[in-house]
Protein backbone atom coordinates (compact mmCIF):
# COMPACT_ATOMS: atom_id res chain seq x y z
CA UNK A 1 0.00 0.00 0.00
CA UNK A 2 1.43 3.36 -1.00
CA UNK A 3 1.13 5.98 1.73
CA UNK A 4 0.20 9.60 1.27
CA UNK A 5 0.78 11.06 -2.14
CA UNK A 6 -0.33 9.02 -5.12
CA UNK A 7 -2.58 6.57 -3.26
CA UNK A 8 -6.18 6.22 -4.29
CA UNK A 9 -8.88 3.69 -3.48
CA UNK A 10 -8.28 0.35 -5.23
CA UNK A 11 -11.62 0.73 -6.98
CA UNK A 12 -13.60 3.83 -7.91
CA UNK A 13 -16.30 4.58 -5.32
CA UNK A 14 -18.89 3.88 -8.01
CA UNK A 15 -17.61 0.30 -8.19
CA UNK A 16 -18.13 -0.21 -4.44
CA UNK A 17 -21.64 1.16 -4.76
CA UNK A 18 -22.39 -1.13 -7.70
CA UNK A 19 -21.03 -4.20 -5.86
CA UNK A 20 -23.06 -3.35 -2.75
CA UNK A 21 -26.25 -2.93 -4.77
CA UNK A 22 -25.64 -6.14 -6.73
CA UNK A 23 -24.97 -7.99 -3.48
CA UNK A 24 -28.26 -6.78 -2.00
CA UNK A 25 -30.34 -7.59 -5.08
CA UNK A 26 -32.92 -10.37 -5.11
CA UNK A 27 -31.19 -11.97 -8.07
CA UNK A 28 -27.90 -12.20 -6.23
CA UNK A 29 -29.62 -13.63 -3.15
CA UNK A 30 -31.00 -16.41 -5.34
CA UNK A 31 -27.66 -17.07 -7.07
CA UNK A 32 -25.76 -17.08 -3.77
CA UNK A 33 -28.26 -19.40 -2.05
CA UNK A 34 -28.20 -21.74 -5.05
CA UNK A 35 -24.38 -21.90 -4.95
CA UNK A 36 -23.58 -21.66 -1.22
CA UNK A 37 -26.80 -22.59 0.56
CA UNK A 38 -26.83 -19.39 2.64
CA UNK A 39 -27.65 -15.73 2.28
CA UNK A 40 -24.91 -13.41 0.98
CA UNK A 41 -23.01 -11.08 3.32
CA UNK A 42 -23.04 -7.56 1.90
CA UNK A 43 -22.04 -5.43 4.89
CA UNK A 44 -18.37 -5.26 3.93
CA UNK A 45 -19.22 -3.67 0.55
CA UNK A 46 -21.25 -1.01 2.40
CA UNK A 47 -18.30 -0.33 4.74
CA UNK A 48 -15.92 -0.11 1.80
CA UNK A 49 -18.22 2.32 0.02
CA UNK A 50 -18.33 4.50 3.15
CA UNK A 51 -14.52 4.36 3.43
CA UNK A 52 -14.10 5.26 -0.22
CA UNK A 53 -16.35 8.28 0.16
CA UNK A 54 -14.57 9.32 3.38
CA UNK A 55 -11.28 9.26 1.47
CA UNK A 56 -12.68 11.19 -1.47
CA UNK A 57 -14.25 13.85 0.79
CA UNK A 58 -11.60 14.38 3.46
CA UNK A 59 -8.63 12.11 2.72
CA UNK A 60 -9.28 10.07 5.86
CA UNK A 61 -6.26 7.96 6.84
CA UNK A 62 -8.54 5.58 8.71
CA UNK A 63 -10.60 5.09 5.59
CA UNK A 64 -7.46 4.36 3.58
CA UNK A 65 -6.35 1.74 6.13
CA UNK A 66 -9.80 0.18 6.27
CA UNK A 67 -10.04 -0.11 2.49
CA UNK A 68 -6.60 -1.64 2.14
CA UNK A 69 -7.29 -4.18 4.89
CA UNK A 70 -10.61 -5.10 3.35
CA UNK A 71 -9.22 -5.62 -0.14
CA UNK A 72 -6.17 -7.53 1.10
CA UNK A 73 -8.55 -9.82 2.97
CA UNK A 74 -10.47 -10.41 -0.27
CA UNK A 75 -7.26 -11.26 -2.13
CA UNK A 76 -6.17 -13.62 0.67
CA UNK A 77 -9.55 -15.34 0.69
CA UNK A 78 -9.32 -15.91 -3.06
CA UNK A 79 -5.82 -17.39 -2.80
CA UNK A 80 -6.08 -19.47 0.35
CA UNK A 81 -6.71 -22.80 -1.33
CA UNK A 82 -3.74 -24.95 -2.29
CA UNK A 83 -3.16 -25.23 -6.02
CA UNK A 84 -3.71 -28.57 -7.69
CA UNK A 85 -1.19 -27.84 -10.45
CA UNK A 86 2.05 -25.89 -10.87
CA UNK A 87 1.68 -22.48 -12.53
CA UNK A 88 3.52 -21.85 -15.78
CA UNK A 89 6.21 -19.20 -16.07
CA UNK A 90 5.39 -18.82 -19.77
CA UNK A 91 2.56 -20.01 -22.04
CA UNK A 92 2.81 -23.34 -23.90
CA UNK A 93 5.45 -23.16 -26.63
CA UNK A 94 3.18 -24.78 -29.23
CA UNK A 95 0.07 -22.61 -28.66
CA UNK A 96 0.68 -20.49 -31.75
CA UNK A 97 2.38 -23.13 -33.90
CA UNK A 98 0.46 -24.34 -36.98
CA UNK A 99 -1.41 -27.61 -36.75
CA UNK A 100 0.45 -30.74 -37.84
CA UNK A 101 0.50 -31.03 -41.64
CA UNK A 102 -1.61 -34.22 -41.81
CA UNK A 103 -4.49 -32.50 -39.99
CA UNK A 104 -4.35 -29.55 -42.34
CA UNK A 105 -4.42 -31.90 -45.35
CA UNK A 106 -7.60 -33.52 -44.02
Amino acid sequence: MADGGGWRPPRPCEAYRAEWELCRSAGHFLHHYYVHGERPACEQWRRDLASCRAWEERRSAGAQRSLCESERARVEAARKHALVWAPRQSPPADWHLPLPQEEKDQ
Partner: protein
Amino acid sequence: MEHSGCAVNRERHFSCEDCSGNVSGGFDASASQIVLCQNNIRNQAHMSRVVTHELIHAFDHCRAHVDWFTNVRHLACSEVRAANLSGDCSLVNEIFRLHFGLKQHHQTCVRDRAILSILAVRNISKEVARKAVDEVFESCFNDHEPFGRIPHNKTYARYAHRDFQNRDRYYSNI
Protein backbone atom coordinates in the same frame (compact mmCIF):
# COMPACT_ATOMS: atom_id res chain seq x y z
CA MET B 1 -6.32 -15.45 -22.80
CA GLU B 2 -4.37 -12.74 -24.61
CA HIS B 3 -3.13 -11.35 -21.30
CA SER B 4 -1.89 -14.83 -20.40
CA GLY B 5 0.06 -15.15 -23.63
CA CYS B 6 -2.42 -17.35 -25.48
CA ALA B 7 -4.24 -15.04 -27.85
CA VAL B 8 -7.04 -17.00 -29.51
CA ASN B 9 -7.25 -17.16 -33.29
CA ARG B 10 -10.61 -18.42 -34.51
CA GLU B 11 -9.19 -20.34 -37.47
CA ARG B 12 -6.30 -21.90 -35.56
CA HIS B 13 -7.81 -22.61 -32.17
CA PHE B 14 -11.37 -23.69 -33.04
CA SER B 15 -12.56 -26.65 -35.11
CA CYS B 16 -16.18 -27.51 -35.91
CA GLU B 17 -16.61 -31.25 -36.35
CA ASP B 18 -19.18 -34.01 -36.22
CA CYS B 19 -18.81 -35.94 -32.98
CA SER B 20 -19.99 -39.34 -31.82
CA GLY B 21 -22.41 -39.67 -28.92
CA ASN B 22 -23.90 -36.55 -27.36
CA VAL B 23 -20.65 -34.76 -26.57
CA SER B 24 -20.92 -31.00 -27.21
CA GLY B 25 -17.26 -30.14 -27.43
CA GLY B 26 -13.75 -30.71 -26.16
CA PHE B 27 -10.31 -29.22 -25.67
CA ASP B 28 -7.46 -30.97 -27.47
CA ALA B 29 -4.35 -30.03 -25.50
CA SER B 30 -2.02 -31.82 -27.93
CA ALA B 31 -3.22 -29.60 -30.79
CA SER B 32 -4.04 -26.50 -28.69
CA GLN B 33 -7.50 -26.55 -30.23
CA ILE B 34 -11.11 -26.34 -29.08
CA VAL B 35 -13.44 -28.78 -30.84
CA LEU B 36 -17.09 -27.77 -31.23
CA CYS B 37 -19.47 -30.61 -32.07
CA GLN B 38 -21.58 -29.06 -34.82
CA ASN B 39 -24.02 -31.99 -34.84
CA ASN B 40 -24.78 -31.74 -31.12
CA ILE B 41 -24.86 -28.02 -30.36
CA ARG B 42 -28.51 -27.05 -30.31
CA ASN B 43 -28.72 -23.26 -30.35
CA GLN B 44 -26.77 -20.04 -29.69
CA ALA B 45 -27.13 -20.23 -25.92
CA HIS B 46 -25.77 -23.77 -25.94
CA MET B 47 -22.92 -22.70 -28.23
CA SER B 48 -21.97 -19.82 -25.93
CA ARG B 49 -21.90 -22.14 -22.95
CA VAL B 50 -19.78 -24.78 -24.73
CA VAL B 51 -17.30 -22.17 -25.97
CA THR B 52 -17.00 -20.75 -22.44
CA HIS B 53 -16.53 -24.23 -20.99
CA GLU B 54 -13.76 -25.15 -23.42
CA LEU B 55 -12.06 -21.76 -23.12
CA ILE B 56 -11.74 -22.39 -19.38
CA HIS B 57 -9.82 -25.57 -20.20
CA ALA B 58 -7.70 -23.61 -22.67
CA PHE B 59 -7.07 -20.94 -20.04
CA ASP B 60 -5.95 -23.58 -17.53
CA HIS B 61 -3.67 -25.10 -20.19
CA CYS B 62 -2.20 -21.67 -20.83
CA ARG B 63 -1.52 -20.66 -17.22
CA ALA B 64 -0.54 -23.97 -15.59
CA HIS B 65 1.23 -27.25 -16.19
CA VAL B 66 -1.91 -29.33 -16.50
CA ASP B 67 -1.19 -32.99 -17.06
CA TRP B 68 -4.34 -33.72 -19.07
CA PHE B 69 -3.50 -37.27 -20.01
CA THR B 70 -2.01 -39.01 -16.96
CA ASN B 71 -3.13 -37.02 -13.90
CA VAL B 72 -6.85 -37.46 -13.30
CA ARG B 73 -6.77 -34.88 -10.46
CA HIS B 74 -5.60 -32.21 -12.91
CA LEU B 75 -8.35 -33.17 -15.33
CA ALA B 76 -10.90 -33.20 -12.50
CA CYS B 77 -9.85 -29.73 -11.38
CA SER B 78 -10.33 -28.20 -14.81
CA GLU B 79 -13.68 -29.95 -15.25
CA VAL B 80 -14.88 -28.66 -11.86
CA ARG B 81 -13.88 -25.14 -12.88
CA ALA B 82 -15.47 -25.43 -16.32
CA ALA B 83 -18.77 -26.74 -14.94
CA ASN B 84 -18.72 -24.07 -12.24
CA LEU B 85 -17.89 -21.03 -14.34
CA SER B 86 -19.45 -21.69 -17.77
CA GLY B 87 -23.15 -21.66 -16.87
CA ASP B 88 -23.42 -25.44 -17.27
CA CYS B 89 -24.96 -25.64 -13.81
CA SER B 90 -27.24 -22.62 -13.83
CA LEU B 91 -30.60 -23.11 -12.12
CA VAL B 92 -32.39 -22.83 -15.48
CA ASN B 93 -30.19 -25.44 -17.19
CA GLU B 94 -30.65 -27.86 -14.30
CA ILE B 95 -34.42 -27.41 -14.39
CA PHE B 96 -34.35 -28.20 -18.13
CA ARG B 97 -32.51 -31.40 -17.24
CA LEU B 98 -35.28 -32.14 -14.70
CA HIS B 99 -32.78 -31.86 -11.84
CA PHE B 100 -34.70 -29.96 -9.17
CA GLY B 101 -32.87 -28.50 -6.23
CA LEU B 102 -32.14 -25.06 -4.83
CA LYS B 103 -30.06 -24.91 -1.66
CA GLN B 104 -26.45 -25.42 -2.69
CA HIS B 105 -27.62 -27.50 -5.68
CA HIS B 106 -25.07 -25.76 -7.89
CA GLN B 107 -22.27 -27.65 -6.16
CA THR B 108 -24.03 -30.99 -6.62
CA CYS B 109 -24.40 -30.23 -10.32
CA VAL B 110 -20.74 -29.22 -10.66
CA ARG B 111 -19.57 -32.46 -9.04
CA ASP B 112 -21.86 -34.61 -11.17
CA ARG B 113 -21.05 -32.89 -14.47
CA ALA B 114 -17.32 -32.92 -13.75
CA ILE B 115 -17.51 -36.68 -13.22
CA LEU B 116 -19.46 -37.12 -16.47
CA SER B 117 -16.91 -35.04 -18.37
CA ILE B 118 -14.01 -37.08 -16.97
CA LEU B 119 -15.71 -40.35 -17.89
CA ALA B 120 -16.27 -39.06 -21.43
CA VAL B 121 -12.52 -38.78 -22.05
CA ARG B 122 -10.90 -41.28 -19.71
CA ASN B 123 -11.34 -45.03 -19.51
CA ILE B 124 -11.63 -45.14 -15.71
CA SER B 125 -14.32 -46.20 -13.27
CA LYS B 126 -16.93 -43.80 -11.96
CA GLU B 127 -15.54 -44.35 -8.48
CA VAL B 128 -12.04 -43.26 -9.49
CA ALA B 129 -13.48 -40.18 -11.18
CA ARG B 130 -15.60 -39.34 -8.14
CA LYS B 131 -12.64 -39.73 -5.80
CA ALA B 132 -10.55 -37.37 -7.93
CA VAL B 133 -13.34 -34.75 -7.98
CA ASP B 134 -13.76 -35.04 -4.20
CA GLU B 135 -10.03 -34.55 -3.61
CA VAL B 136 -9.74 -31.37 -5.69
CA PHE B 137 -13.22 -29.90 -5.22
CA GLU B 138 -12.54 -27.47 -2.35
CA SER B 139 -9.61 -25.88 -4.14
CA CYS B 140 -10.90 -25.90 -7.69
CA PHE B 141 -14.51 -24.89 -6.98
CA ASN B 142 -13.18 -21.76 -5.29
CA ASP B 143 -10.73 -20.92 -8.09
CA HIS B 144 -12.69 -18.38 -10.11
CA GLU B 145 -9.90 -17.21 -12.39
CA PRO B 146 -9.97 -15.37 -14.74
CA PHE B 147 -13.33 -13.92 -13.61
CA GLY B 148 -12.78 -13.39 -9.89
CA ARG B 149 -16.38 -14.49 -9.37
CA ILE B 150 -18.88 -16.96 -10.83
CA PRO B 151 -20.32 -15.13 -13.89
CA HIS B 152 -23.99 -16.05 -13.45
CA ASN B 153 -25.14 -13.66 -16.18
CA LYS B 154 -24.01 -10.70 -18.28
CA THR B 155 -24.04 -8.34 -15.29
CA TYR B 156 -21.54 -10.48 -13.39
CA ALA B 157 -19.45 -10.90 -16.55
CA ARG B 158 -19.45 -7.14 -17.06
CA TYR B 159 -18.32 -6.55 -13.47
CA ALA B 160 -15.60 -9.19 -13.86
CA HIS B 161 -14.33 -7.47 -17.01
CA ARG B 162 -14.40 -4.12 -15.24
CA ASP B 163 -12.24 -5.58 -12.44
CA PHE B 164 -9.83 -7.01 -15.02
CA GLN B 165 -9.47 -3.62 -16.70
CA ASN B 166 -8.90 -2.05 -13.28
CA ARG B 167 -6.31 -4.59 -12.12
CA ASP B 168 -3.26 -2.31 -12.31
CA ARG B 169 -4.92 0.34 -10.14
CA TYR B 170 -6.22 -2.34 -7.77
CA TYR B 171 -2.96 -4.13 -7.03
CA SER B 172 -0.92 -0.96 -6.81
CA ASN B 173 -3.22 0.50 -4.13
CA ILE B 174 -3.74 -2.36 -1.69
